[in-house]
């Protein structure tokens, strides 16, 4: 048999029809739904008199719009409220399982999928959200779709898809101490550009990836879309299986053992080839900070804001000029001298328990700089509860952080968590686009550790030189 890549194995297994001269029809195993990209899809179904084909394979929650302050208070924004009520009604009308605002399982859709064991190796997973690529960390083929496609999947449990190309991103060696998965993916995007993987599905391989926990792998796959990729994926291994064991919706007992035996086949065969290959020396990666308005505009913490003149093409020079103007930065300024006003620790990239443990470890024993307003927004209610049980919430609160309810929050600032014009924010989220966190707001993407350290110092600082005051804690131990 012809050797296949991980992607090809999952793809081939899910193509149910390949009509002549048309895209493949791909079966979808799991469809995640949230309040922002679904109302028009349900409306479309109603107009056409169609039903949801597999409500049992569809799961909904609310995350983008939700307030992160006290949940017992009424929602003040009437349009947000309407959108949330619309989702609740749609789920009820069409028989879809729904984790409502007051549910203990509520959270960012890409945090709760894995946490609940809904995300499993070999599945095809879609959601009306570009960061669906997160779920690829489990060896699933997971990608974001638009609202018309949400409607398509609701109606047919299938999608029409042209077969993407494959790219291997190989991280050789190990990440140095203080350098995280977030730095690895930011370094990749800085290297290949925000359109570097357009049209491709990335498979991440190499020693650095193999040694990562599931949560770190999710951070990597999450930001695949920021390199333009259709999806990102990592072959499942013992780390994956251990993580999934005993998750609420994961198979149990003998069924789990059988599933694992099948999932072990989900790896790229010896001799299989990718359409493109990129290699990165993980041991050479330094903590990253972005300086511009696109995730590819990043550099090492030890470096300075670049001079637009140093870029190769006219388009790049112009983009850099516009970005620096928006960001209010002067070329040549050392990254460590950039002062910040706000810190946001959260988003589907970095709001899981390990992220919070890592940030708390940095913060413990310190106080947030007087001019900085800092907040932690856990990715889900379960993460929040666990962080409170482990004492992490107390550490953040004692240091002067705000401790919030779960949701997307200031990652896209659809709810009241918004940057003011000109405010500069160290953010653990995934996008530093103009206005993303609030009109005129300036976003620098960093790891949770780097964000925590910036909150304390009031400016960016090299986490590798951090003096830890707290007691030793296990960062990666799973629950």
């Amino acid at each position: 048999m012809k050797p296949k890549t991980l992607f090809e194995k999952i793809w081939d297994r899910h193509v149910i029809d390949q009509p002549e001269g048309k895209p493949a029809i791909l079966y979808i195993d799991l469809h995640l739904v949230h309040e922002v990209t679904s109302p028009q899809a349900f409306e479309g179904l109603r107009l056409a008199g169609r039903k949801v084909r597999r409500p049992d394979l569809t799961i909904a929650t609310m995350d983008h719009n939700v307030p992160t302050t006290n949940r017992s208070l009424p929602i003040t924004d009437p349009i947000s409220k309407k959108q949330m009520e619309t989702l609740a009604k749609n789920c009820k009308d069409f028989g879809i399982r729904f984790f409502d605002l007051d549910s203990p399982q509520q959270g960012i859709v890409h945090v709760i999928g894995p946490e609940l064991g809904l995300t499993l190796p070999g599945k095809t997973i879609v959601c009306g959200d570009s960061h669906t690529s997160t779920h690829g960390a489990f060896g699933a083929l997971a990608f974001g779709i638009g609202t018309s496609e949400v409607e398509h999947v609701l109606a047919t449990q299938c999608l029409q898809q042209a077969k993407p190309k494959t790219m291997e991103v190989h991280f050789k060696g190990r990440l140095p101490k203080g350098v995280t998965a977030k730095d690895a993916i930011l370094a990749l995007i800085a290297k290949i550009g925000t359109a570097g993987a357009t049209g491709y599905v990335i498979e991440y391989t190499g020693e650095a990836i193999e040694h990562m926990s599931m949560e770190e792998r999710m951070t990597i796959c999450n930001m695949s879309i920021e390199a333009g990729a259709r999806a990102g994926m990592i072959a499942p291994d013992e780390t994956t299986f251990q993580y999934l064991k005993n998750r609420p919706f994961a198979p149990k007992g003998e069924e789990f053992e059988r599933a694992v035996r099948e999932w072990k086949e989900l790896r790229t065969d010896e001799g299989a080839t990718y359409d493109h290959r990129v290699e990165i020396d993980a041991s050479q990666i330094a903590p990253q900070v972005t300086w511009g308005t696109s995730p590819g505009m990043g550099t090492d913490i030890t470096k300075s804001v670049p001079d637009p003149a140093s870029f190769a093409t006219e388009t790049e020079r112009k983009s850099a000029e516009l970005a620096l103007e928006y960001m209010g930065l002067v070329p040549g300024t050392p990254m460590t001298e950039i002062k910040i006003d706000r810190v946001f620790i959260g988003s589907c990239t970095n709001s899981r328990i390990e992220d919070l443990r890592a940030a708390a470890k940095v913060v413990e024993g310190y106080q947030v700089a007087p001019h900085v307003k800092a907040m932690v927004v856990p990715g889900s209610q379960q993460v929040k509860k666990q962080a409170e049980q482990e004492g992490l919430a107390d550490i953040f609160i004692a240091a002067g952080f705000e401790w919030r309810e779960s949701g997307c929050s200031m990652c896209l600032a659809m709810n009241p968590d918004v940057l003011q014009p000109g405010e500069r924010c160290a953010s653990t989220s995934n996008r530093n686009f103009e206005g993303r966190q609030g009109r005129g707001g300036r976003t620098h993407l960093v790891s949770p550790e780097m964000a925590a350290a910036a909150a304390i110092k009031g400016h960016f600082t090299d986490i590798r030189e951090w003096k830890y005051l707290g007691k030793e804690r296990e960062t990666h131990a799973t629950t």
Partner: protein
Amino acid sequence: MQPLRQETGIVTPLDRANVDTDAIIPKQFLKRIERSGFGQFLFYDWRFDSKGNPDPSFVLNQKKYEGSSILLARENFGCGSSREHAPWSLLDYGFRVIIAPSFADIFYNNCFKNGMLPIRLTSEQVDQLFQKAYRDQPYQLTVDLVEKSVYDQEGLKFFFEIDEYRRTCLLEGLDDIAITLQSEEKIAKYEEKLPDYYAIAAK
């Protein structure tokens, strides 16, 4: 979906690379549950100042581009979020064609679902069009999806490539859900063999 065969219109040049969907339609407008009425919010933060007054330096506010139906842009147009509100707002504003050297995947796909045509030309060709669109008089271009070309009255003519299936769907305004449902039998058959451990029930 409204079919598209030929479109003649004024070209608006938007001279920026990596225009993301957050810029096309900022998040505060994603709370609406309707599919229509998004045109007024298109490029909101660029089009209007913080008090809501039009910024005269932004292209969409310049008189000569009024009524334009063809948007000219740079590399990686439509990157970022999957929000289909981006094509909805462009379409509602009046754009039916977007020309750029490259597009982000999800955005590219979303365009076709809404009867809009994203056209990839080479950077050199796009440069030429920018030069013309910058002149004092409005610059008109015709896009012909039947022969896969764009041309003007001055003898310029470029051909572009496009997936045949997407082209047919757009030419005829086809509903792709109905097309997939033609494979209903195969879907049902496939579902009989779904792994039992993928069934979602609290276990």
